[in-house]
């Protein structure tokens, strides 16, 4: 198979786009796509101060690499979750992320949750019922809280995550199977800023996971390939496997699933929930000062109070 643009040997065939490209043209094409989505969904512009949540994985590093090359004002935030589990998962991820930033002269901030809050993710998981039953949910909650807190305190205009199309399609599938209307109403790739909440965006929302990995590979980005030991049995990975089986038989299925959902959101599907998602009544957590919908301590602070 040959590159459609120059005829050289292709390194990737994207069946959903009926497009095969060589390494150089693929890198160029992916960056163009990302810019297209940034503009289409009005994510941010060159004057915005951008915080990229980096984990040491292919998606966040590929995203940061593209944005830095395009001249956006980006800083990175790495959250050290203290996950070791015999494979030094967090320390390896931290090392990879630090080395990435150093090589490119990018500014990286690091928050170590054990240093800041006294416990690592495995320790929280062991102590709390929520952590024992849904470790990924605890991790997600902690990361969202820290990211928002950091962005608010340091005046970032927007927080970016490396969520790719496969992530979004898997979340969409899970929320659809559960008919989680509130989450379905909030699945847009951009969440506007609200009092106490920074704007959030996902520039890779229409980039396949395989494209993101291929970009990292051909760009020589070293990333952590191993899975988080807590996520091995996660629902999201199961849904991704199912979606990939469907994708093999029907190229473009994941993309259509997600795009038709975005069209449905634009057309006003779940209108009552969309309105309530926009205007969630916010109280301030008396401990950390971040908004909470419940009054009293926010979910994050309650996590550290639980026996």
């Amino acid at each position, binding site marked *: 198979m040959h590159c459609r643009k120059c005829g050289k040997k292709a390194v990737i*065939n994207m069946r959903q786009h009926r497009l095969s490209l060589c390494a150089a043209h693929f890198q160029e094409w992916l960056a163009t796509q990302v810019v297209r989505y940034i503009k289409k969904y009005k994510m941010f512009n060159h004057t915005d101060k951008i915080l990229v949540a980096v984990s040491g994985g292919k*998606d966040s590093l590929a995203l940061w690499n593209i944005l830095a090359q395009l001249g956006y004002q980006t800083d990175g935030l790495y959250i050290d979750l203290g996950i070791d589990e015999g494979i030094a998962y967090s320390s390896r991820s931290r090392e990879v992320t630090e080395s990435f930033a150093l090589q490119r002269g990018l500014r990286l901030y690091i928050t170590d949750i054990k240093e800041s809050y006294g416990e690592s993710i495995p320790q929280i998981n062991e102590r709390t019922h929520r952590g024992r039953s849904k470790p990924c949910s605890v991790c997600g909650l902690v990361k969202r809280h820290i990211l928002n807190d950091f962005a608010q305190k340091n005046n970032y205009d927007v927080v970016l995550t490396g969520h790719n199309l496969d992530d979004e399609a898997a979340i969409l599938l899970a929320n659809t199977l559960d008919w989680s209307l509130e989450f379905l109403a909030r699945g847009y790739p951009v969440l506007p800023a609200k009092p106490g909440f920074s704007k959030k965006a996902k520039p890779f929302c229409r980039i396949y996971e395989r494209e993101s990995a291929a970009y990292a590979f051909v760009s020589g980005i070293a990333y952590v390939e191993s899975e988080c030991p807590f996520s091995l049995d996660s629902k999201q990975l199961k849904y991704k496997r199912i979606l990939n089986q469907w*994708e093999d038989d029907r190229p473009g299925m994941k993309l259509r699933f997600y795009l038709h959902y975005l069209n449905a959101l634009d057309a006003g599907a779940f209108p009552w929930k969309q309105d309530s998602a926009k205007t969630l009544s916010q109280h301030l957590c008396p401990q950390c000062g971040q908004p909470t919908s419940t009054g009293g301590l926010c979910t994050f602070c309650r996590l550290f109070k639980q026996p």
Partner: protein
Amino acid sequence: MVACAERKVTIKLAHMVKPQATLILKKKSILCYANTPVWKGMKAHGFSRSAFLIVRDGDLITDDEILKAGDQIELIPVVSGG
């Protein structure tokens, strides 16, 4: 009994002389038939073509490339999350 045993041996030999390539996933080697596209070799072992990058001699290749006898093909999983 003899005929049956002979037949078994014949089938085994026929299987062994087919040219083979190796798929390598996380340092584990899996034999598959050569002279077919990579994606067919992957499918035969239950691997989704949407879930891996394919690397031959350090270079990324497309999954329609034909497996040659003796090829060592590395499969890099791309799926992550939690």
